[in-house]
C-alpha cells in the first residue's frame, strides 16, 4: 500500500512520491529520509541482497541476511523487492516501475545504468518528470570518475581525514561512515531540489552527487584559511586548544569547556566566578591581565596552569554535574557524551527522540534514534520496519500488473526473489 491517511494519522509531507532506491551504503540513508517523511520508497535489491546486509553490527553478532542492524536502521519505512538487473526481464521490470516513479536513487559506478538499459535517457522517455539521483565516489565524469572509494578513502581525498586526530601520528577517521553519510545527506537534498523543480515544471533531470566533493563541505574554514592567509589548518595540537577552551577530564569521562569562544564571550568571567564560588583550589592564579591576552592563552604555560587547576577540580566531579552547574551559569560547557549517556539524556527523553526498534528477530525492547526534525503538521514517522529480503516483491509487481503466476515464473527463472 502507498501511504494513506486516516483521521488519526497526520498527512505526510512526501505522501504520493514514489522513489526507487537502488542504492547501497552511500545512498540508503537518503532513501530513509524520503521514506520516514512519507514517500513510498521501494528498495530494489539484487537477489543476494543489498551490500548493507553484510555490514555490522549484527543482531547477537551473528551475520545473516536479516540480521544487520546497519541495514535495518538505514532502510526503515521502505518496501523491498529483489530484482536481478543482469537479466533482460529484470531490466524490463525496473523500466516498468520507473515509468510510475518520481525519483530513482542509485549508487552504481558511472555507466552501469546505461550499460544495463536503465540510463536516464531511456527511463525519462516514459516518465518526463522522472529525477535520477546518482551518487558515486567521485562523480559521473572527470579523471577520478572510475576510481573506487570506501568511506575512509573519501574522507582522505575530501580533506576531512587530514583534520581529525592527533599531531605526530596518522590522522583518524570520523565515526560511523560519515563520508557515506555526507554523500547520502547531500544526495537527499539535491534529489529533493530536483523533485521540487520537476513538480513545478513537469520536467525531471539527472543529479550527479560526488561523495568526495560532499566531504569537502565539512572542512569548516580550512580552504578559506589557506586561500586568504596561506595557512594550512592541521590536526589540533592537543585537547586544550587554548587555556579554558577544549576537552578536559572529569570523574567519569570528559567535558568540553568553551570558556573562550568565537569573538568576545563573557564566559571567561562567568567561569572564574564559578570556580571561585565552588572553592577551586588555587583559582587566584587565573586572575590577572595576562588571561585576557589571546597570545598568552595559547601558550603552553597558560594551558598547563589552567589544565592543572581545572582538572584537579573537575576530576572530582561528574559530566552531568559540571554540565548542569555550568549551564546554570550560562557557560558553554557540554559533556563528551557516550551513546549510553545519550540514551539517558533528559532533553532527548523529553523530546521523545528515541523510538522503539522493531525487528522480527529481536524480542527484547530496543530503541534507535528517531526524528531528526519535528514538523508540526507533517511529522516524521516510521511507516514500517526495514523490509525482509524480497518481502514486497509480489505486492509491488502486482501494482504494475504482474500476475501471481508470472511472478512465480520470474522467480524460477532467477529474475526476482
Amino acid at each position, binding site marked *: 500500500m502507498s501511504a494513506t491517511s486516516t483521521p488519526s494519522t497526520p498527512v505526510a509531507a512526501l505522501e504520493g512520491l514514489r522513489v526507487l532506491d537502488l542504492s547501497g551504503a552511500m545512498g540508503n540513508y537518503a532513501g530513509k529520509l524520503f521514506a520516514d517523511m512519507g514517500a513510498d520508497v521501494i528498495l530494489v535489491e539484487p537477489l543476494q541482497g543489498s551490500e548493507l546486509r553484510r555490514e555490522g553490527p549484527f543482531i547477537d553478532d551473528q551475520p545473516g541476511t536479516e540480521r544487520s542492524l546497519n541495514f535495518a536502521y538505514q532502510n526503515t519505512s521502505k518496501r523491498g523487492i529483489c530484482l536481478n538487473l543482469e537479466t533482460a526481464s529484470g531490466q524490463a521490470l525496473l523500466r516498468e516501475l520507473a515509468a510510475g516513479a518520481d525519483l530513482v536513487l542509485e549508487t552504481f559506478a558511472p555507466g552501469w545504468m546505461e550499460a544495463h538499459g536503465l540510463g536516464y535517457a531511456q527511463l525519462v522517455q516514459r516518465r518526463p518528470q522522472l529525477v535520477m539521483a546518482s551518487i558515486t565516489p567521485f562523480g559521473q565524469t572527470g579523471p577520478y570518475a572510475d576510481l573506487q572509494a570506501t568511506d*575512509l578513502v573519501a574522507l582522505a*581525498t575530501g580533506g576531512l581525514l587530514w583534520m581529525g586526530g592527533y599531531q605526530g601520528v596518522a590522522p583518524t577517521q570520523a565515526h560511523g561512515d560519515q563520508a557515506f553519510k555526507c554523500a547520502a545527506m547531500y544526495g537527499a537534498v539535491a534529489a529533493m531540489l530536483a523533485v521540487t523543480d520537476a513538480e513545478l515544471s513537469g520536467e525531471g533531470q539527472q543529479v550527479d552527487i560526488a561523495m568526495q566533493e560532499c566531504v569537502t563541505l565539512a572542512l569548516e574554514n580550512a580552504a578559506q584559511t589557506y586561500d586568504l592567509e596561506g595557512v594550512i589548518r592541521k590536526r589540533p595540537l592537543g585537547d586544550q586548544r587554548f587555556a579554558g577552551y577544549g576537552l578536559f577530564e572529569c570523574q567519569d569521562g570528559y567535558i568540553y569547556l568553551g570558556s573562550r569562544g568565537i569573538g568576545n564571550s563573557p564566559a571567561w568571567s562567568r567561569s572564574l566566578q564559578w570556580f571561585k564560588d565552588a572553592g577551586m583550589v588555587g583559582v587566584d592564579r587565573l586572575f590577572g591581565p595576562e588571561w585576557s591576552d589571546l597570545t598568552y592563552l595559547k601558550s603552553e604555560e597558560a594551558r598547563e596552569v589552567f589544565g592543572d587547576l581545572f582538572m584537579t577540580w573537575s576530576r572530582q566531579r561528574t559530566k552531568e554535574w559540571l554540565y548542569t552547574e555550568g549551564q546554570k551559569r550560562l557557560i558553554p560547557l557540554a559533556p563528551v557524551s557516550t551513546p549510553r549517556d545519550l540514551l539517558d539524556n533528559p532533553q532527548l527523553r523529553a523530546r521523545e527522540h528515541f523510538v522503539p526498534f522493531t525487528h522480527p528477530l529481536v524480542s527484547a525492547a530496543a530503541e534507535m534514534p528517531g526524528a531528526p526534525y519535528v514538523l508540526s503538521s507533517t511529522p516524521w514517522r516510521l511507516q514500517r520496519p526495514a523490509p525482509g529480503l524480497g518481502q514486497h516483491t509480489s505486492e509491488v509487481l502486482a501494482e504494475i500488473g504482474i500476475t501471481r503466476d508470472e511472478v512465480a515464473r520470474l522467480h524460477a527463472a532467477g529474475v526476482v526473489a
Partner: protein
Amino acid sequence: MTEKRLPLAGLRVADFCWIGAGSYTTKIFGDLGADVIKIESSTRLDSLRMAGPYKDGKPGVNRSGYFADRNTSKRGITVDMKHPKALGLIRKLIAQSDIVANNFAAGVMEKFGLGYEDCKRIRPDILYIGMSMQGSLGPQRDFRGTGSSIAALTGIQDLSGLPGNVPAGTGTNYPDHLPNPCHAAFALLAALRHRRRTGQGQCIDFAQTEPMLSLMGPTFLDLTVNGRLQQRRGNDHPWMAPHGVYPCVGSDRWIAITVATDVQWAALVGVMGSPAWALEARWQTLPQRHRERQALDALLAAWTAGQDRYDLMRRLQAAGVPAGAVQDAHDVTREDPQLAHRGHWIRMPHAEMGESIYNNLPFRLSRHTVQPQRGAPLLGEHTREVLGSLLGLTESEIDALQAEDLLK
C-alpha cells in the same frame, strides 16, 4: 543543457540565521535561486563576521572568508531588533516571505515578537524553522553552546580517535557543516511540498543535536540490541584489513588504503612487488589479516613510507584497490584534478575581499547550473534596496529610519 529558472526562484527567505549551521542552510536556498534576505545588526554582529580567516589576515566585518563562504547568494540588511520600530518593519518583510529561519537560542524570536504564532498571524502559510541547539521544547531548551558543544554532546567526539587517548572528534565542528544544514534543508523542502499541495504552512522545531544522532543509528542499535557500548577505534574497520592510514614520503604525508577482498589483497601484494613477508600463509585470507591487523599495518607502513602518496594512489587504484592520498587544504584546493574538473572551488569578487575562494554545492544538475549567485553581502549592503523596492519605502522614509538609528 536547457537553462531554466532555478528550482527555488520566486521563493523568499527572511533569514535571521547567524554563525554556523543556520547560515549554511539558507545558503543552499540562495544558491538555488531563492531570495534570501539576511537580517543582521551591527549592534549584535553575526560573530562569524569576526572569525577568521580574513583577507590579508586583517580583521574586519566584511573580511572574513568563513562568513563569506556561508552566506553566498544572500542579500543583507541591518536592522536593530531592539529598536521600537524594528518589529513593524520586519513584519512587512515577513508578509512577503515564504520561510522564516533562525538559529537563535530558544525563545529569542518570541522576545522579538516573531515566534511562529506571531509570524503565522502575519502570513498564515509561513514556513518557520527554529534551529536552536536543543530545540524549542524540553527541560534543557535553554542550555547554550556552539558547534564544539554540539560535537561533544552528540557523541561524534567521543567515538572518533584512538582508544585510550583523549577523544579526537573530527577536528572540526562537524554537525554544523553537513548534518544540521542538510537535514534542515531537507525538512524545509519537504514542508514546501506540503504547502504547494495544501496551502498550509507549518513550524519546524529543529534541535541541532538530533541529526547527528540520526546519522549514528547502528551505533545506538549495537547498544540497545547487543548491549555493546562502542568505543573509539582509530582507523580500524569491523572486518576489512588492511584498512588504515599509512605514512608516505614527505613530512606528515599519508595514504588511506582499504582492502575488502582477497582479490584486492593479491593486487596490493602485486603493487608492492610481492615481498616475501606478504606471501606468507598467514596473510592470505581476510579473517587472518583482520585478526593480526596490527602486525600487518606495521609491515605495510614500513613499505608505504618509501612511496609517494599520489603515485601510490594511482598504482593501487589502477590495480583495483581503493586508496586515496590524505589531502590537506592546499591539496584539495590546488592539486586535486577531480574537484577541479567538477568546478568545486569558485572564485568570486567581493568589494572588500577582492577575489576569494568559495565552496560550490557538491552536486550537479543536468538542467541547471549549480553555483553561488554572488558572494556574501557586506554588512547592510542591501538595506536601502530591500526597504525600497521590496517593502515600498521611499528614499525619504528610509532616510528618516536611518536617522532614528533603526537601520544599523
